[in-house]
């Protein structure tokens, strides 16, 4: 047993010394390998963390959002629909919601306007998200924000509250207003709302309640929370997918590079294998040597790639990706993602990077190691 351990340790020693001999080749391979692991792991961490945030945010979302559609397009819904919906058995609450988007040409930015469901700000006052506060050069309580309403008249709204930074993921571009100001801002017809938020007491009855709503109120479209979750999931998957498509080019070039480096045993390496065999190394010893060399490179690259990706995403909020997958607005939310690691995805990354490289190292070595040891005598 001791002898086996000694033999392994000696071969590992030699593998490391062997790697150090070809410093430039191995360091360039390691750097490229690490870069690919870093980018793919960053993407995995980022998408996983965003999905988690989305699930948390939607946890507080209403069970059903009822919209009205005309000719297949979203239209304003009569606010008194909420009373009719509330009367349906199983519905515990139904309330109209007012929200919309405002384009600010001064900053080339879009804001999300919303009337809070309870205790809205007083007329003439607003609550703003941290992204907007930054855009307005550090706007704080008491700051007057000039906004142009639907009648092209300027409204001066006073900031009375700035949302804290920890809500930035959802509230970065948000402006909360009073119902009156919302109506004036967008010239909304009286008695109409954007949609109706419905809460159902028993989650088992959500689909039944949705059916009853469409039956009683033709022209409405109930959207279930489960559908929203699914949409968010596919949205992030799609965006993640886009990145993967782009990165697949990098991955492919890495595979070609690694294959070339790992499989193309140089004349020197072949000669070395011949010498080792002639001085008493078995084919399995040579394979072990190449295995440990492959493992040392791939495990180092994998470990460092994953560690750097973790720091990039969870400590620096993924600066390399934010423009690509954080959103389309100019108001990029500043937030720190909560570390979320999916062991399954990491395992997939491990098997897609470490195993192919190790195999690519061993196969040519095996081909070279099966030559007769007397080849060294004739070199």
């Amino acid at each position, binding site marked *: 047993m001791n*002898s086996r351990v*000694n033999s392994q340790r*000696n071969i590992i020693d030699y593998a490391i010394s062997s790697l150090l001999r070809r410093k430039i080749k191995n360091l360039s391979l390691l750097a490229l390998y690490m870069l690919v692991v870093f980018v793919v792991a960053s993407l995995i961490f980022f998408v996983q963390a965003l999905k988690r945030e989305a699930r948390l945010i939607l946890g507080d979302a209403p069970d059903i959002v009822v919209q009205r559609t005309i000719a297949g397009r979203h239209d304003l819904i009569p606010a008194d629909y909420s009373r009719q919906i509330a009367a349906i058995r199983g519905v515990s609450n139904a309330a109209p919601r007012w929200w919309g988007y405002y384009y600010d040409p001064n900053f080339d930015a879009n804001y999300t306007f919303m009337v809070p469901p309870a205790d809205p700000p007083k007329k003439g006052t607003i609550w703003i998200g941290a992204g907007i506060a930054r855009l307005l050069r550090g706007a704080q309580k008491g700051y007057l924000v000039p906004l142009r309403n639907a009648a092209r008249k300027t409204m001066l709204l006073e900031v009375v509250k700035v949302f804290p930074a920890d809500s930035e993921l959802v509230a970065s571009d948000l402006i909360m207003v009073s119902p009156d100001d919302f109506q004036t801002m967008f010239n909304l017809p009286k008695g109409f709302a954007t949609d109706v938020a419905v809460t159902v007491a028993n989650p088992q009855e959500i689909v039944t309640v949705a059916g009853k709503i469409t039956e009683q109120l033709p022209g409405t479209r109930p959207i279930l929370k489960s559908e929203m979750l699914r949409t968010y999931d596919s949205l992030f998957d799609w965006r993640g997918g886009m990145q993967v498509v782009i990165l697949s080019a990098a991955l492919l070039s890495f595979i070609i590079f690694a294959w070339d480096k790992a499989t193309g045993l140089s004349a*020197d390496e072949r000669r070395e294998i011949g010498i080792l065999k*002639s*001085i008493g190394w*078995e084919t399995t010893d040579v394979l072990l040597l190449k295995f440990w060399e492959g493992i040392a490179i791939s495990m180092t690259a994998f470990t460092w790639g994953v560690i750097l990706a973790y720091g990039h995403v969870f400590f620096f909020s993924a600066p390399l990706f934010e423009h690509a997958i954080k959103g389309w607005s100019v108001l990029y939310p500043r937030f720190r993602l909560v570390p979320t690691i999916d062991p399954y995805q990491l395992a997939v990354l491990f098997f897609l990077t470490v195993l192919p490289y190790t195999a690519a190292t061993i196969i040519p070595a095996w081909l070279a190691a099966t030559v007769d040891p*007397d080849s060294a*005598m004739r*070199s």
Partner: protein
Amino acid sequence: MIELTHVSKCFTMGKSNQFKAVDDVSLTLRRGKVTILKGPSGSGKTTLLTLIGCMARPTSGRIRLYGIPAPGFIELPPTDGFDISSLPERFLTHIRRTTFGFIFQQFNLIRGISVLENIMLPAYPTGESHAVFHKRALELLNLFGITRLAASQVELLSGGESQRTAIARALINNPDVIIADEPTAHLDSTLSREFMDIIGGFKAHGKTVLIASHDPIVYESALADMVVDMRDGRITGTGRVS
């Protein structure tokens, strides 16, 4: 003792370019003696060395080793010889590693690593503790007067220093038999004589030495107990059997 009986080695068997490198060789190498295989290039000396040194198997004939502890998988009393002609590669490697030390014509040192590491290489897969064979390697460095070169890269060595490193490597596993293929081919006369002095030391320590050479300094040396003349794969004469 190593006994060869009607040993032949054919390359590219069954093809139009079939070539018989060793042809019906029968020979006995005595323990503790120096045997020289002498002959021109292409006479089959190197092939015969590879067959005796378990690097290749003969196409026909038998090679038996006597007085050498048989590997654990062959249950024989140590006095009885055992046939190595048809052993699987794994077993041949084991015998090669424990019984034979090789000195190659080109020295076959591995570039990029130190003299000390080169010397220790044959011991790595044996399962012996690193500390033990490291100490032995230092002793060998000292024995051959190259201690100061321990950390040097082998590509920076002179011919004589490379030769000594190769000899030290051949001895690291303390083999019973030393096999050298044209060891003086790249050495001048002084270094060749120094090499023969080292061979004299092996002989004094009871090692069996087998050298293939067409250098008169080697085959005319007083150390040679037997000189075997070879040509076209066959033994054409044997001399000086003491």
